């Protein structure tokens, strides 16, 4: 089939599409395929999967609505988009849950077959929105997706129930036509996924994808299709990456560069489990994964592995990190390297397991008994998770300390193009196990880093004991002396503080002084960047810094804060980094906080910046 459009084609700069339907409608797969095709089309992009915690919530209900949003453009994309220009909608519940977000005048592609009285009632519509003018604000394309699907593949003899589930490929085909996406990769994907197991399903889905395209091209519903030109980005080789995959690869990279075998002790938890899954497939890199009996066992096994000389990692989300607290404190006092990845989700407690949030910062900084500071770093985007977790590993083994690496649900499941790094330029991770018994003391310290020696079991002549009781500096023998305890608490804190010497100068987006400084961390990077560009374009003197190192903070941060009249700290929590900044630097930083389980919208940040500037 020719992919050259017969109808007129209109060029757009950027588009946001949201696919919504029941949990079982395949919206995540549909979105992922559209994302791949968009990467191949050469656009810059960012995605936001948004799905319920229930695996299969009751069909046609609001609780079961699953969505996938992607923004793509011919220029740089920082966010998955504030509001969809196009909503591809499989049922009345999905319509009800999403309609208010669609931009006025935007397009809605509706599966009309799903608008039965029963499903309207389940979704809470009093009247049929297709008939009462509710949707007048938007351009609605009514497509009987189910009946067209059944008609299209009736000769294949697939049971009706299964056949009906293929309708997402018909919808996908329509969107491919609308935005001139290449179909080849998706056709190949379908063949690989279904070809061997079920040739009929493979044929059905391929046929439906092409039928969707043909429908768009010939049907009078769509007056035009759109092209989005290739984005102009810096030169290099790119791939699409989700944050959880980047994190797993960053850990493998640190293992390879350091020469240490990677050990992963973890217990499954949303949204961190995919990191464990990825690492379990990397055994050829020497990775040993241990699915422990619980969160505490996961971190404990990792500390044991670290004692024995592995690059040890535990990964979880907030509730799991809470359980690991005591063991992390132990890793701090015994001074063994350990990387703790927290893929944050909505809290407190079980909270919103599949939604994003940044509310574990204070837990990371302070969530242990006693004086137990540890370094904390945070990834700012899916691809940045690679470098950030690599940095966490580097700090852990250099300073002999546990390090927390923060990601979040948005970074974990969101995707973006990743300019693949030059592996030869990764920072060194130099590890030297102590092997010389001459004058060995378990807690003698390196002058520069204050790190103690890593002496692993099996090394002749270095037999020594470590443990959670306070110990005498040098020997490491158990010691209850008050002065020694005071000294040791300060020494361990000083060691963590010395990580500052490795932190590069903070990158300032914008002028290095001005009226307002936006300070962010974590997954809000894209939104803050986009918002700051907008207000800078209006001539406002606003700059932005985004912190990777949250403990210790960058050594130049105090100076930078002092060069701006106002400081605004937007966070998806009720104000955590802002507390730290106010306490550490005595500046009157203001917070902007929303905690809705969703990324910020650019317009919300722009509004917050403008309001803050207007305040006297």
């Amino acid at each position, binding site marked *: 089939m020719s992919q050259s459009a017969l109808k007129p084609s209109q060029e757009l700069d950027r588009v946001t599409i949201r696919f919504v339907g029941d949990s079982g409608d395949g919206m995540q797969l549909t979105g992922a395929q559209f994302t791949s095709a968009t*990467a*191949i089309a050469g656009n810059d992009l960012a995605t936001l999967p948004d799905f319920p915690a229930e695996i299969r919530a009751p069909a046609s209900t609001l609780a079961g609505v699953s969505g996938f949003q992607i923004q793509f453009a011919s220029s740089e994309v920082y966010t998955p988009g504030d509001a969809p220009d196009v909503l591809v909608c499989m049922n009345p519940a999905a319509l009800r849950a999403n309609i208010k977000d669609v931009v006025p005048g935007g397009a809605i592609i509706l599966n009309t077959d799903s608008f039965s009285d029963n499903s309207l009632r389940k979704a809470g519509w009093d009247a049929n929105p297709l008939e009462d003018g509710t949707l007048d604000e938007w351009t609605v394309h009514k497509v009987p997706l189910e009946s067209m699907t059944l008609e299209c593949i009736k000769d294949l003899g697939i049971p009706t129930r299964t056949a009906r589930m293929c309708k997402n490929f018909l919808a996908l085909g329509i969107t491919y036509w609308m935005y001139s996406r290449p179909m080849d990769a998706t056709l190949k994907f379908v063949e690989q996924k279904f070809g061997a197991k079920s040739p009929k399903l493979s044929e059905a889905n391929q046929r439906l994808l092409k039928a969707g395209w043909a429908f768009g091209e010939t049907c009078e519903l769509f007056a035009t299709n759109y092209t989005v030109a290739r984005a102009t*980005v*810096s*030169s*290099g*080789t*790119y*791939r699409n990456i989700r944050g959880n995959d980047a994190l797993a*690869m960053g850990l*493998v*990279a640190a293992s*390879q560069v350091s020469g*240490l*075998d990677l*050990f992963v002790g973890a217990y499954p938890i949303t949204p961190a489990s995919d990191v464990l899954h990825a690492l379990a497939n*990397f*055994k*050829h*890199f*020497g990775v*040993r994964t*241990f699915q*422990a*009996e*619980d969160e*505490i*066992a996961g971190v*404990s*096994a990792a*500390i*044991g*592995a*670290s*004692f*024995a*000389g*592995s690059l*040890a990692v535990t990964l979880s989300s907030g509730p799991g990190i809470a359980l690991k607290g*005591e*063991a992390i404190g*132990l890793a701090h006092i*015994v001074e063994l390297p350990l990387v703790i990845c927290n893929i944050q989700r909505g809290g407190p407690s079980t909270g919103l397991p599949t939604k994003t949030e940044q509310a574990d910062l204070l837990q990371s900084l302070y969530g242990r008994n006693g004086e137990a500071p540890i370094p904390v770093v945070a990834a700012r985007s899916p691809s940045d998770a690679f470098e950030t977790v690599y940095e966490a590993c580097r700090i852990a083994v250099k300073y002999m300390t546990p390090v927390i690496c923060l990601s979040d649900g948005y970074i974990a499941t969101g995707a973006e193009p990743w300019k693949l790094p030059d*592996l030869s330029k990764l920072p060194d991770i130099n*590890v030297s*196990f102590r*092997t010389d018994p001459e004058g060995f003391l378990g807690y003698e310290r390196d002058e520069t880093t204050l790190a103690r020696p890593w002496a*692993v*079991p*099996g*090394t*002749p002549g*270095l*037999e*020594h*004991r*470590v*443990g*959670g*009781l306070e110990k005498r500096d040098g020997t490491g023998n158990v010691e209850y002396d008050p002065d020694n305890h005071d000294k040791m608490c300060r020494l361990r804190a000083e060691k963590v503080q010395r990580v500052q010497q490795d932190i590069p100068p903070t990158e300032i987006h914008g002028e290095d002084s001005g009226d307002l400084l936006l300070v962010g961390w974590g997954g809000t990077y894209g939104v803050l960047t986009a918002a700051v560009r907008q207000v800078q374009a209006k001539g406002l003197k606003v700059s932005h810094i985004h912190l990777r190192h949250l403990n210790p903070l960058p050594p130049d941060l105090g100076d930078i804060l002092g060069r701006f009249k106002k400081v605004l700290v937007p966070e998806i929590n009720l104000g955590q980094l802002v507390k730290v900044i106010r306490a550490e630097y005595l500046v009157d930083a203001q917070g902007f906080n929303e905690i809705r389980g969703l990324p910020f919208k650019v317009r919300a940040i722009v509004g917050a910046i403008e309001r803050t500037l207007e305040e006297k």
Partner: protein
Amino acid sequence: MSITHLDTIRSQRGEIPEYKKADYSTDQEVRWCPGCGDYAILSAVQKLLSTLPVHKEDHVFISGIGCSSRFPYYMNTYGFHTIHGRAPAFASGVKASNPNLNVWIVTGDGDSLSIGGNHLIHILRRNFNVNILLFNNRIYGLTKGQYSPTSELGKRSKSTPMGSVDHPFNPVDVALGAGATFVARTYDIDAKHLTETLRQAWEHKGASFVEIYQNCNIFNDKEFEDVVSKQVRADAQVRLAAGQPMRFGADNNKGLIWKKGVVEVASIGEDGVTEDDILIHDPNQDNPGLALTLGRLRNPDSPEVFGVLRSIERPCYEDMLVAQVAEAKAAKKADLHALLHQGYTWTVE
């Protein structure tokens, strides 16, 4: 790189030195109460290690929290005093990381059966090749005298002034139920039996679980007196030995027999019972049924059994893990560049 350097050092090690018991003691002052049963166990372990064909640096002692968990500080080996109840999890990580190490877990009844119950059953089912020494004194010592999960029903303690209403665990019951491949029982004041049992535990490939009756002379003195004192031993204990009849008594004329689906005490020559009726001990039986029944025998209704209740073979977790890694390495090259570039990539000039 230094990691390889360590491998070189290890590969150049000579013969295993002739160790003395003193080689395994540290300069640290032992801080258990005078008269505590832990001293005898420490002494037996130090002595046993000096006789094993193992380099000193290849032993690792890992403990949780409690009186018994101070043990690693007194062993001149690698040691890790961890957090309450989690020693098996730390040990799993050590063993998965370096299967060549000899890992010993030292724990108590509260540490392993209360706060750490979960980790105990899971290390047993996974069958990591470790030795677990459970010092059972049926009381909380370090927290000064609360009842423990092995204290008898009705136990009066600081936290149960009217008597405990908790039904106790029987440690060997828990271990057998969790699918342990080696389960034994011994006690602190019989150095010979203790040492011999621990030696068998060390020889067993897999998770070896040893319950050690241990006297806490401060908070639960003479708890086991009716079973372990020299005066009553002969009649209150059955010493299990592979292939041997389960006989006991001062005159060795009593024994355990199987009658109507239960184990009973019988006297040879009485009620028509002959030597041939006495049960023969077979620790290698796959079915744990009889071991469970024997482990549950309690004084004063019957004698209590000591020795190896069960010893069977099953693959160890760390061996299977290492095998999978080796298989994956043989099948696929570790190429970081290829990993990053897998799937669809595109180049921008």
